[in-house]
């Protein structure tokens, strides 16, 4: 698809807005529909569109597989880490109220952090799956 100039121009125009929308869905999930999972998938969709139009190598440069596998682990570590910090501060595992003196603030920040963890893991895993599949060639 490297010769399709309309697709190239339009997808280059669209990709920044898809990424921005992913961040909106991520951080507005407390107030409206959305959250880490949806945001991660939308974020990954921008990379997948980039890969579909410009080829596998550019998307590998933008998101190297070695980095993606570590980022995927980082997201879930962030999630579990919030739970452990809550335990260290005297609460139960994943009891965000224990994170801060004001329980509601603790809940707000805890949920924001764990949603970020979900988003990071989902985005990294989705991009990885796309890259791994797209790199395969038919076995003859």
């Amino acid at each position, binding site marked *: 698809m490297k010769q399709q100039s309309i697709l190239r121009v339009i997808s280059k125009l669209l990709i920044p807005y898809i990424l921005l929308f992913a961040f909106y869905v991520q951080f507005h999930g407390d107030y*409206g*529909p959305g959250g880490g999972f949806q945001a991660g998938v939308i974020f990954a969709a921008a990379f997948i569109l980039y890969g579909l139009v410009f080829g596998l190598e550019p998307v590998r440069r933008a998101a190297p597989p070695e980095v993606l596998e570590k980022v995927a682990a980082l997201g879930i570590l962030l999630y579990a880490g919030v739970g452990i910090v809550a335990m260290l501060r005297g609460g139960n595992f994943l009891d965000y109220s224990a994170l801060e003196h004001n329980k509601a603030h603790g809940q707000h920040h805890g949920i924001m952090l764990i949603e970020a963890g*979900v988003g990071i893991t989902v985005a990294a895993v989705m991009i990885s799956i796309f890259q791994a599949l797209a790199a395969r060639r038919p076995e003859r």
Partner: protein
Amino acid sequence: MDRRTGGSVIERVIVISLLALLVATAWTVVRLRSLFATAMLTGIYSFLGASWMLLLDAPDVAFTEAAVGAGVSTVVMLVTLSLTTREEKPGRFRVFPLLVVLATGAALVYATLDMPAHGAPDAPAHLHVAPEYIADSVPTADGEIVAVGIDNVVTTVLASYRGYDTLGETAVIFTAGIGVMLLLRRRPKRGGTGR
């Protein structure tokens, strides 16, 4: 759509058209032999499903269905198609699978007869823990400390009350990613012919 209050006529028309389109899409998927067209049609099916879920006031689920079902999984199917053939082999018609599907469908329809109307406030699902969750999600006007205080109840339930489950779901996604990477990834930079 609330069956008890009837909903609006337009909403009813839209729901029926969406469901009719879903059936038409599913039927076309069954009939078609071209796998490329089938992959595109399953994307359309997901998108119609997402629109219908939006009408059922489930925007979070609709969001996920549109992003995953219509977006990412269609791409994954198309990429997979590039590794295999584009035509389904003609199979012969078999009666037993059709009977299994019909029996399962009939059982599911029979099960819905017992269910409360959609959105009925006295449904058991809305009387167990939901009132407490909703009360906890709405911040009080005088700034009193509430249990969670997040506007979107879905986020409250997923992230706080069911935080443990969501951690498990994230672990499942991570495990799936690791599995795909282990099975499919080639390392072109290491040279050699290894896959």
